[in-house]
């Protein structure tokens, strides 16, 4: 991509990432939540791939590390959910409009966002690699 795209990407990617984290953390207060925030986090990485090409980005996070994060997120989600199934309650009644309120819900949101962010990044990476291989032929 051209220099303009790269410079603007450098400026905006951090903002997109922070916006994603904001959406994740306020999922139980305002619209948003783990899934939407996770997709935004994944989109910020995809943005990097689109602007800088995949070599720059995959040096830092490659496919197997993405799978590792996705399965870690899923595993913690499962453990939290298992506690929730048994009726675990964590002070649901106080501090309704704070970030750390609402029992297990913020925890759920955070682990879902890890799963979704890493997972969608891996999906995009797999498809992009496949397409580049085809164009080489």
């Amino acid at each position, binding site marked *: 991509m051209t220099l303009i795209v790269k410079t603007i990407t450098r400026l905006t990617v951090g903002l997109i990432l922070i916006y994603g984290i904001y959406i994740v953390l306020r999922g139980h207060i*305002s*619209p948003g*939540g783990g*899934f939407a925030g996770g997709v935004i986090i994944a989109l910020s990485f995809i943005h990097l791939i689109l602007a800088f090409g995949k070599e720059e980005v995959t040096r830092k996070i490659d496919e197997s590390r993405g799978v590792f994060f996705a399965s870690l997120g899923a595993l913690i989600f499962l453990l939290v959910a298992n506690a929730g199934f048994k009726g675990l309650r964590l002070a649901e009644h106080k501090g*309704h409009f704070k970030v750390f309120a609402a029992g297990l819900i913020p925890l759920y949101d955070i682990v879902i966002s890890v799963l979704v962010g890493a997972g969608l990044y891996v*999906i995009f990476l797999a*498809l992009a690699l*496949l397409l580049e291989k*085809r164009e080489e032929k």
Partner: protein
Amino acid sequence: MSLYFLCFTLFCVGLYCVLRKRNIIKIIIGLAIIEYAVNLFLVLIGYRTHGRAPIFAEDQVISNMVDPLPQAMVLTTIVIGLAVIAVAVSLAIRIYEKYGTFDITKIRRLKG
């Protein structure tokens, strides 16, 4: 009622696309349209005239909320739609790689 019917019309446009188009990507687009129509239908059935969004606010008592349960359902179905589309697109790209075409009539090794 008329909104429900328009929503079903959107569903049928997608259905027509899946049933009649030959191009694999077009079929996936048709599936996406059907997903959208069903999601919209689920939210429509939960709407309440002059209702409020199902989010509480500080120092206000809100009683006329729209039905939150279909919205929670749609949250799940959007993810399912994304998963199906991701799998279908990866299959489509692989098929293009092996057969060199997106035309479904030319992709016929299985018969009988």
